[in-house]
């Protein structure tokens, strides 16, 4: 049993949920006349004033293009943007700034690796090992790469509790595998995969591992050195930052060996019509004017999270997970989907005989924002033989009162729909 919220508040100086919610203006808005209950955090998180104001301040007082300008504003903007790289390095404990590549998000980060890594390292007849729990963005880029290089995409199966079948992973892991690409935490079911064990096993055969950290970055401390993953990808918008900005962490040796992906400004050293030499890491992979405000927003978001402490956030969210899982399991007709013992604060469920879409429509009328459907993980739904699920995903700014209202809302939906 994890610590309860009150212990957290007393022991670690963690603010109360009421205090935290004051930082998020959207949480006090109304939807269809009811107070908004935002439980779609696995899709995107809400933004605190600190992030909104940092972006606002940048556009009001610091806006300029970066890295090239000699003038004052350009230098100021460059400094603010590059400060984000330092923040990210510290946040995920990367060794150096060269290992932190800015992208437009997780999908872009995975596509970068799928294109550039594959060009260098994916051999004909080679294999890319992914898992049955992947989001489409960690499936399709690899399908494209495998098609191009006549390689094979191999899938680690899952079981009905929503966990990977690790014995099968060991069977599939052999010298023909060029890369293992797996999600750290499932966005549909919340399962936390045993990634450390998997990384160590892959490394024993010198196979690099990419972790899709789109979900895990929001729920726990990420230490890429302790994990020893070779790539780690995430999006700013899932951790209180703006959309359209993300990170690819990669081990320097691998990134050095990989060819550039997109061409353009920023990623070059010299250009002539016969020969171009490329810039050093991390800029080699950052073509064009970046999303400068995005970086500045992410900086502010990381500062906010580090002030609260990711360990405290994890504890607070585990309490929300336990309470919501318990509440939902008490409702007759509700079936929890994804029942691994090791989960992040994502609760997927269905109501017997009722389509998830219908539940979502009724909850929406009550002001409760949940996600319904396949959550961009169609293979999981096919495996479980369901059209989709209703997914309530919790963030540390959600309250126990909101779980109570979700509980009431589901009961109301069941009465109306069955």
């Amino acid at each position, binding site marked *: 049993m994890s610590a309860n919220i009150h212990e957290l508040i007393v022991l670690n100086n963690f603010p109360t949920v009421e205090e935290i919610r004051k930082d998020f203006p959207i949480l006090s808005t109304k939807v269809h006349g009811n107070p908004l209950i935002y439980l779609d955090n696995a899709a995107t998180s809400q933004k605190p004033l600190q992030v909104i104001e940092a972006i606002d301040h940048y556009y009001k007082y610091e806006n300029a293009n970066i890295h090239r300008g000699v003038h004052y504003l350009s230098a100021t903007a460059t400094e603010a943007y590059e400060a984000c790289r330092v923040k990210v390095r510290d946040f995920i404990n990367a060794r150096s700034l060269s290992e932190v590549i800015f992208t437009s998000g997780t999908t872009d980060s995975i596509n970068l690796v799928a294109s550039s890594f594959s060009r260098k390292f994916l051999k004909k007849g080679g294999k890319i090992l992914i898992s049955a729990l992947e989001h489409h963005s960690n499936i399709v880029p690899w399908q494209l790469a495998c098609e191009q290089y006549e390689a094979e995409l191999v899938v680690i199966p899952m079981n009905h509790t929503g966990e990977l079948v690790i014995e099968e992973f060991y069977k599939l892991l052999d010298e023909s595998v060029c890369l293992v690409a797996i999600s750290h935490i499932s966005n549909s079911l919340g399962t936390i995969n045993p990634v450390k064990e998997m990384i160590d096993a892959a490394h024993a055969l010198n196979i690099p591992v990419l972790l899709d950290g789109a979900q895990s970055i929001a729920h726990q401390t990420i230490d890429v050195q302790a994990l020893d993953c070779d790539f780690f990808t995430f999006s700013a918008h899932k951790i209180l930052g703006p959309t359209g900005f993300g990170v690819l962490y990669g081990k320097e040796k691998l990134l050095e060996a990989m060819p550039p992906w997109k061409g353009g400004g920023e990623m070059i050293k010299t250009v002539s019509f016969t020969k171009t030499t490329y810039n050093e890491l991390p800029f080699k992979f950052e073509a064009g004017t970046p999303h400068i405000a995005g970086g500045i927003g992410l900086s502010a978001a990381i500062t906010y999270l580090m002030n609260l402490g990711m360990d405290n956030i994890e504890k607070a969210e585990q309490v929300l997970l336990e309470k919501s899982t318990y509440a939902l399991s008490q409702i007759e007709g509700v079936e929890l989907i994804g029942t691994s013992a090791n989960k992040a604060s994502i609760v997927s469920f269905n109501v017997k005989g009722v*389509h998830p879409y219908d539940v979502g429509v009724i909850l929406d009328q009550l002001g409760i924002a949940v996600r319904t459907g396949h959550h961009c993980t169609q293979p999981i739904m096919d495996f479980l033989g369901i059209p989709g699920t209703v997914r309530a995903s919790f963030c540390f700014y959600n309250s126990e009162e909101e779980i109570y209202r979700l509980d009431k809302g589901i009961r109301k939906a069941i009465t109306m729909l069955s």
Partner: protein
Amino acid sequence: MTDTAPIEEIQSLLVEDFSIFDNWMDKYELIIQLGKELPLIDEQFKTDDNIIKGCQSRVWLHAEQIDSKVIFTADSDAIITKGLVSLIVKVLSGHTPKEIVEANLHFIDEIGLQQHLSPTRSNGLLSMIKQMKLFGLAFQIQNTNSQKS
């Protein structure tokens, strides 16, 4: 077959039916009721060929022409979608291809359910209406061709 009232008239009646509700819950309860009541489509037509895939819910649509009128039957796996499907079928089924092609479906907006027709909802409803109009168009062309030959 009895003559169906004109499309505009059916729409006005539906708007009137819904106008008695002043809260969303009653409105949805009626739609859910409609969804539950009707066996909308013959099982033999619930095939993959007749499926309109939304990201969220699926809709099956079948069309046939009887005495120059197009008869639609449809179904959905989600009950709220099914209720709305039944309303749309009620409005468009039993009319000539020309009337279907030219119909302007404004009643959904007027009863305050336009959110379900948003392309972002991807429940299959918007695609279903498009498909119904395409059927109308196809029958229209077919009829013109058969008159010529």
